[in-house]
């Protein structure tokens, strides 16, 4: 039990930090531009696939730098030539544009790399067990992922709190039009923020790719969870996104590791009852409902605290 708790906590924090790499960009983009970027998880997927391809061509370490940059450039292009032109048609059109993009990117990726998972491996330099807890070898690559996410997290924090650009971004989080009135080139700030946000998502993809499965449906699997994170944390709140990322990372990891069901706690139902929704619910394990837990959480949050954990605005 203690082993399960330690390993799951480590994995949960790791997954949470990955989620934060994505949700931080999404939150900042949403706060500044009012656009919930549906394609954000697609940038994560692009990062993973670019990382895979570049690792093949030039090795993992250059790919770790170049792939996120490439994704960032794609993101900036999307902002400059897509969103900026759609802005005049309103928020719904912008949301739908990113929705269409997410759809198209998934199709393009499966067109180029196929629908089955690609062989994106952990680099040899990091392919060893870092330490042994109880009887489980904890892979060094996961520690590397954790270190990268924490470093990015600190860098983000320092940039936001200590630099001039961070100051403008922070101001734009709460008062986007005022920032424009003060004479900043809001268009360029938007493009930059969008690029950095998608670049971070790309980085998350590059480092998560070898550890998770690199497949053309990875964006569709992660995207909705990402929305849960930022709604749960409070739309537009970075600290909220951080807490929600960790929380959902931990919840999902623990749920997957637990095998209990109502049947294992209270004993099996009388077999004469026959198959019914009750027996389904009775026999389902916590691991099986892990995929729906985030959505359950989302619905509960929207019912009881519509502004999310730390959010201030309702929509």
């Amino acid at each position, binding site marked *: 039990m203690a082993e399960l708790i330690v390993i799951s906590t480590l994995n949960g924090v790791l997954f949470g930090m990955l989620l934060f790499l994505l949700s931080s960009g999404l939150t900042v983009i949403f706060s500044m531009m009012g656009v919930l970027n549906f394609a954000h998880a697609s940038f994560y997927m692009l990062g993973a696939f670019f990382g895979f391809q570049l690792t093949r061509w030039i090795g993992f370490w250059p790919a770790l730098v170049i792939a996120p940059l490439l994704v960032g450039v794609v993101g900036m292009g999307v902002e400059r030539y897509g969103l900026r032109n759609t802005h005049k048609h309103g928020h719904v059109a912008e949301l739908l*544009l990113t*929705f269409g993009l997410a759809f198209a990117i998934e199709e393009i990726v499966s067109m180029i790399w196929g629908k089955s998972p690609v062989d994106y491996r952990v680099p040899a330099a990091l392919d060893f067990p870092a330490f042994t807890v109880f009887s489980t070898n904890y892979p060094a690559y996961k520690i590397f992922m954790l270190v990268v996410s924490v470093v990015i997290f600190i860098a983000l924090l320092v940039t936001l709190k200590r630099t001039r650009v961070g100051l403008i971004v922070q101001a734009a989080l709460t008062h986007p039009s005022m920032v424009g009135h003060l004479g900043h080139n809001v268009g360029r700030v938007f493009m930059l923020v969008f690029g950095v946000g998608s670049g971070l998502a790309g980085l998350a993809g590059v480092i998560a790719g070898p550890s998770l499965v690199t497949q053309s449906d990875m964006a569709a699997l992660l995207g909705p969870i990402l929305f849960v994170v930022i709604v749960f944390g409070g739309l537009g709140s970075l600290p909220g996104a951080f807490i929600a990322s960790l929380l959902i990372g931990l919840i999902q990891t623990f749920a997957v590791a637990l095998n209990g069901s109502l049947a294992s706690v209270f004993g099996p139902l009388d077999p004469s009852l026959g198959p019914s929704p009750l027996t389904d*619910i009775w026999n389902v394990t916590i691991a099986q409902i892990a995929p729906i837990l985030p959505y359950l959480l989302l619905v509960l949050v*929207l019912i009881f605290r519509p502004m999310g954990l730390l959010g201030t605005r*309702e929509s």
Partner: protein
Amino acid sequence: MTNAPTPTLAAAKQESGGALGFYGVWVLAAVALVVLPLIFSSGGSLTSFCLIGIAIIFALSYNILLGQTGLLSFGHAVQYGLGGFLAVHVMNAVANHNWPIPLPVIPLIGGIGGMAFALLVGWVMTKRAGTVFAMISLGIGELVASSSLILRSVFGGESGITTDRTSLMPMFGWTFGPQIQVYYLIAFWVLISAIAMYALTRTPLGRICNAVRDNPERVEFIGYDPHVVRYLAYMFAGFFAGIAGGLTAINFEIANSAYLGATQSGLVLFSAFIGGTAYFFGPILGAILVTYLQLGLTSVTSVWQLYFGVIFIGIVMFAPGGIAGILMKHRPLIRAGTLGTVIPSYLVAAIPTLAFALGIILTIETVARFSGGDVINLLGIPFVATAPTTWAAAAVLVVGGFLVARITWRRVAEAWDRAATVARDRGYLA
């Protein structure tokens, strides 16, 4: 049939011949629905008509949310799928107990299923509009789709639940075994649902829905609760989506968890938006086009979904009014008789635009077939995906087409402005 404000002068003209034109459209639609399978009687086209009919009801029901009430839903397939599942279960129960319920009533039960679910979750969902509604509809959609795989006894797991539509009581000697009889059943429901949904837009509720879409704050000031209005709209949308789901269950004699999924929700959003959400007939056009493309493209190319995405992005960026919006934009020009001055510039712009589109198609197909080494047959010209000449041709078409098209579209805009000015002078354009 418009919901957009028409200029007073044009509106006055519309009133005079209104009643005849209004009923004429529906009679014409009914006649077309009856006659269509007689003209195109092959099995393939019958199947397509059935799918298109269902898609029309589904897209129209979606537009009650997006077009009429301004609610962007990413989980509309939930009501559709649940309606389908309820229909299948009821059909099986009716067959087992020999209840005297004929098949044509079953879609109504699907509708009640969709409405019941909307009743259950709608109050919480419609508290807020905008992004929050979009998110919660996505969440509910994922929740129901994932839950359907857990509740196996109700949803049948991956394989779904099958039924037999001929096992129900025959009606007027029809067993609904042959596809043509199913077609007429679907056509009947398409007509009824379309009339009902159109009538809904004309009721005070439909009008207040539009008001909630445009300015919820003012709606509150005049004494309505936008939340209640959104809730009602959500229930009506759920009802008609359920009818579509019930018809699908009858058509395929199966309901599975794919009915509830994100793909289905995405397709209906595509249909409604590509067709145009501002006009009642928009989603009908969209449903026809999307279903037709879906059926036609699958046999031509393996990446047909990508074309959907590209068309959708194109519509969002360049014509957010959809096909209906483009068509209706020309109405004042036709009335003023100035459309003729725009058409030449359209014809000029069509050539590079077509070249650009062909270039995009060639590029996509080259990438898609690169590893397979298949030959692309475009306009009868064979292109080899691995040949550099193909790449060059694609690049020239895309880049050249884009550059020339940009110039020609600028000229279209100028011609349009001149024509619109004349139309405005003559009082046909506000």
